[in-house]
């Protein structure tokens, strides 16, 4: 599946970033094994690097992952599952697995689980490879490896800027976080600007149907 081609470099990048943020190999891998949510993991390690407190990191993760409620509702309508199957399917649910399942219009739990597990395995192998690679970089401070944070988030952000409202939200949230970061510690600017920017976007797009 071509999906793996996208997931592998993302997992690799996540792990290199996590290691340069000071996470150990075990910690880097633990997030991939237990949380298993790419953009939330990258954001979390970015916040760890800036010394954000745990609560702010958890709330940012919630903000980023609450969209999974929508995927679940949509999948649960098409695919019938027992209670245990629901628990398993929920643990491994990601944007990509949801995307493939919906594209195939599947009603099969086995198909959903197959898509989910193949992504989980790829993500974790890529994490391990990246964590080993990232750990072997000598003197990361001198190399300026911390620059990888803003660059990684720019690379995640730019493809999402499909319209004027999206650009306006990015500019607003970026500026708000920059101002807030002058006076507030770690994770608060990200959380505040994240909520503020999304509210602005929802207000700007009143009357818009398709997103």
């Amino acid at each position, binding site marked *: 599946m071509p999906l793996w081609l996208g997931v592998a470099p993302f997992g690799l990048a996540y792990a290199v970033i996590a290691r340069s943020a000071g996470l150990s190999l075990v910690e880097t891998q633990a997030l991939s094994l237990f*949380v298993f949510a790419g953009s939330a993991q990258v*954001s979390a390690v970015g916040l760890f690097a800036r010394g954000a407190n745990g609560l702010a990191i958890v709330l940012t993760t919630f903000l*980023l992952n609450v969209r999974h409620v929508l995927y*679940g509702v949509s999948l649960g309508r098409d695919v019938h599952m027992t209670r245990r199957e629901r628990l398993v399917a929920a643990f491994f649910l990601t944007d990509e697995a949801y995307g493939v399942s919906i594209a195939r219009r599947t009603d099969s739990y086995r198909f959903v689980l197959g898509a989910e597990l193949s992504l989980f395995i790829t993500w974790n192998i890529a994490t391990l490879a990246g964590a080993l690679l990232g750990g072997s970089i000598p003197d990361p401070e001198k190399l300026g490896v911390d620059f990888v944070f803003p660059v990684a988030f720019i690379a995640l952000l730019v493809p999402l800027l499909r319209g004027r409202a999206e650009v306006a939200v990015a500019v607003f949230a970026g500026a708000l976080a920059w101002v807030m970061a002058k006076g507030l510690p770690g994770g608060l600017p990200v959380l505040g600007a*994240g909520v503020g*920017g999304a509210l602005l976007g929802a207000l700007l797009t009143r009357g818009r149907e398709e997103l």
Partner: protein
Amino acid sequence: MTFWLTCAGMVAVTFGSRLTGLSVRTHLPAFWLRFLHFVPISVFAALVTPSLAGSRGEGGIRVVAAALAAVAAWRTRQLGLAIAVGMVAFWLLRLLPG
């Protein structure tokens, strides 16, 4: 210890969101659907700006290298490639005298 507590919290909110969706049958109001669409955009932008300039007085070259990475991301939509372009540009610009 802080790490593992944070990790447990991240698992709780992530798994919680996923399971809630699979377990309930509901429709979110359109306003909140649009809100969710903009969350990654505003969070990613908010993560970029405070860390862009850095703390070693290299703000100028970091902004230029970041702009090049943005162009690469826009043109190719390849995460790994865009990061590579940004980092290589940064290292090359640092070598310049002055």
